[in-house]
């Protein structure tokens, strides 16, 4: 079955520290991969996406993610975290080879940033 795993439920970092949020997927031929961010009481904002091509993708707010097919991973990174990055982060996967365009979401990682 298709699935997305975000192993870290909660991560705490200091402001200015680097960040890596993990995402692993179990999917079909060519996944489409996304990271969304949800601030408290807000909707889901798209941070970045991977469809094909360069496996290192740049997103908004200084985030990047790298698609590693051999590891079935799409980890989100940021070199220096800002206090405003505190939010919940969701990895999501889509796969047209299953004749569907629904997104499968991970359970999310809550990021807390200390000053």
């Amino acid at each position, binding site marked *: 079955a298709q699935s997305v795993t975000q192993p870290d439920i909660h991560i705490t970092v200091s402001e200015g520290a680097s960040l890596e949020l993990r995402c692993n997927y179990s999917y079909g031929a060519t996944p*489409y991969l996304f990271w969304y961010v949800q601030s408290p009481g*807000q*909707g889901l904002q*798209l941070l970045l996406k991977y469809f094909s091509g360069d496996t290192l993708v740049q997103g908004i707010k200084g985030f990047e993610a790298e698609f590693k097919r051999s590891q079935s991973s799409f980890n989100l990174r940021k070199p220096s975290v800002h206090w405003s990055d505190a939010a919940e982060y969701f990895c999501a996967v*889509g796969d*047209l080879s299953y004749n569907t*365009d629904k*997104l*499968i979401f991970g359970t*999310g990682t809550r990021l807390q940033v200390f000053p």
Partner: protein
Amino acid sequence: EPEVTQTPSHQVTQMGQEVILRCVPISNHLYFYWYRQILGQKVEFLVSFYNNEISEKSEIFDDQFSVERPDGSNFTLKIRSTKLEDSAMYFCASAFRDSNQPQHFGDGTRLSIL
């Protein structure tokens, strides 16, 4: 930047009542979706809609649920007879094309069933 807008932001309803959640997708988008997020859980797909018909629905989307695009701009989710377990945040999303275009989400409607 164009946005998906959802109304109301919070809906409180008695169990057994009907509720309609409204969404205005981005104007040139052709694919529409509803997802829900029960408090503390992951975001789950409910239904996708294209060309005025449902293209896919999940197991959650039973006969109590229906979707409609009554005019050129609105996309609605109706729950016919609400249950306590329908309490959740409901997100509308839209996309210009399927799969190879990202889905853009609204801010959600928090539905509370009493």
